[in-house]
């Protein structure tokens, strides 16, 4: 009896330590970056062009670039991903086609991001002649996060209880009406989770944008979707490893990292608010 209790105490103690360790690591990373990067953050840093071989000035073009890529990739990937998820979960019956599509979606999720980068370069930059551009980068990033959006949409739909579907059918609603009016509103909050996850990934990835959009140094804002832009993760890589004076730009690198994290955090909060809004609307409407 006592043995059993000691075992349990030990086991849960271990679980607790491990869980806290994970959280601790997150805080250490965040703290590290905040402490080192906070001193360079200023209005000027956020709103001006890089100068003097990126040793001075700000990171505005990289911030704008990353924002463009987030928006561009989501405009492309979110509708396609959600519609595919709806098709796979609601329309396909459980047969080889559904299993095939599921497996392929999972495989797509497993493709390394650098491979997406190469593919994007081959297809969008060269074959379709978009050149290094926001559109080529957005499409590449969009492809990369498609499986994330498809899978979360599918899971969100799967968690909707079948009884409400049957209730809707029994009132003479068509399948499309049922999905549109009953199933999707229930699933929205969880679908938004897919959006959050994919935005976080899009804003942080370097490999897919390396050959498709990211500029080493481009101190101006884009005029069209066919322009190249700087992007935060790539800029971070540049000033950390191949700038004109790495030691001198180190604080700016931390500042850039801090801005990147802040953007991701901000987008997550925004999406969470959206999630809550839809969650509430579902109950009230």
């Amino acid at each position: 009896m006592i043995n059993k209790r000691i075992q349990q105490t030990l086991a849960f103690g271990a679980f607790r330590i491990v869980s806290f360790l994970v959280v601790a690591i997150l805080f250490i990373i965040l703290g590290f970056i905040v402490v080192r990067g906070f001193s360079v953050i200023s209005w000027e840093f956020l709103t001006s062009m890089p100068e003097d071989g990126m040793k001075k000035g700000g990171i505005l073009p990289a911030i704008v670039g990353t924002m463009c890529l987030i928006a561009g990739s989501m405009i492309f990937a979110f509708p396609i991903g959600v519609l595919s998820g709806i098709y796979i979960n609601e329309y396909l019956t459980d047969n080889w086609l559904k299993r095939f599509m599921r497996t392929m979606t999972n495989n797509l999720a497993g493709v390394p991001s650098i491979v997406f980068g190469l593919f994007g370069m081959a297809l969008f930059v060269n074959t379709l002649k978009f050149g290094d551009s926001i559109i080529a980068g957005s499409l590449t990033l969009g492809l990369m996060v498609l499986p994330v959006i498809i899978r979360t949409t599918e899971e969100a739909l799967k968690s909707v209880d079948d009884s409400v579907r049957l209730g809707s059918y029994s009132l003479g609603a068509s399948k499309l009406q049922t999905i549109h009016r009953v199933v999707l509103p229930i699933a929205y909050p969880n679908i938004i989770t897919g959006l959050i996850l994919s935005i976080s990934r899009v804003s942080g990835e370097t490999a897919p944008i390396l050959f498709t959009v990211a500029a080493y140094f481009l101190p101006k804002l884009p005029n069209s979707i066919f322009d190249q832009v700087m992007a935060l993760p790539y800029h971070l890589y540049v000033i950390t490893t191949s700038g004109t004076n790495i030691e001198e730009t180190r604080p700016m690198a931390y500042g850039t990292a801090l801005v990147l994290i802040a953007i991701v955090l901000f987008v997550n909060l925004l999406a969470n608010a959206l999630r809550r809004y839809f969650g509430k609307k579902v109950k009230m409407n």
Partner: protein
Amino acid sequence: MPEHKVETKNLNLFYSDFHALKEINFKADKNTVTAFIGPSGCGKSTLLRVFNRMNDLIVGVKMEGKVYVDDKNIYKKNVVVDELRKKIGMVFQKPNPFPKSIFENVAYGLRVNGENNKEFIADKVETSLKKAALWDEVKDKLKKSAFELSGGQQQRLCIARTLAIEPSIVLMDEPASALDPMSTAKIEELIYELKENYTIIIVTHNMQQAARVSDFTAFFYLGELVEWDTTKTIFTNPKESKTQNYITGRFG
């Protein structure tokens, strides 16, 4: 001669290889209540779902024989299933309100069937809630979420939702099995009142309930319609020994 609302002829139904309904010949007259009784897995709920073609949604269902609603074969190719389901309402075992307001739950069936007139919808919502004996309890909170209602109220909301589309037949699949005795009594009272205007078929595991609410009772066992007669006969003088054994609680 009474009008047959629902009729099956030599109906056989298979789930893949499983023979779920065997040679069912059944009729329900207009404005009567028929109770389907029998042990779990006997096919009574399956037969109920034959009438509004809910079994269409299940993969691997095969059917032979004929099913008539208002003397029309509902399994003919040119039958529009959505239209059929408008005529045949269904109330499910567990209350399944939509994640919408009380008002919108009742209005839903009208809206999906193309009704846009606000006054008409508001009117219909009110009369349906009254028919379902729920109006007095919810009239001041129509905009509140349906989830704020109790289980019994939710089930009456689902009945109101069904009545709003003016079906002539209402199918009920153990509508009170998830409810407390008070709510059950209310639902039973309601069934009794609805009989005036609707043909009702109710699946139930509760013998007293079947005896209380129904005019006719059909006893199913292992996919067969063993016996079907007036409720009084079934409960006082059944012809088959299986029926006798079941209603007296000796098996099932």
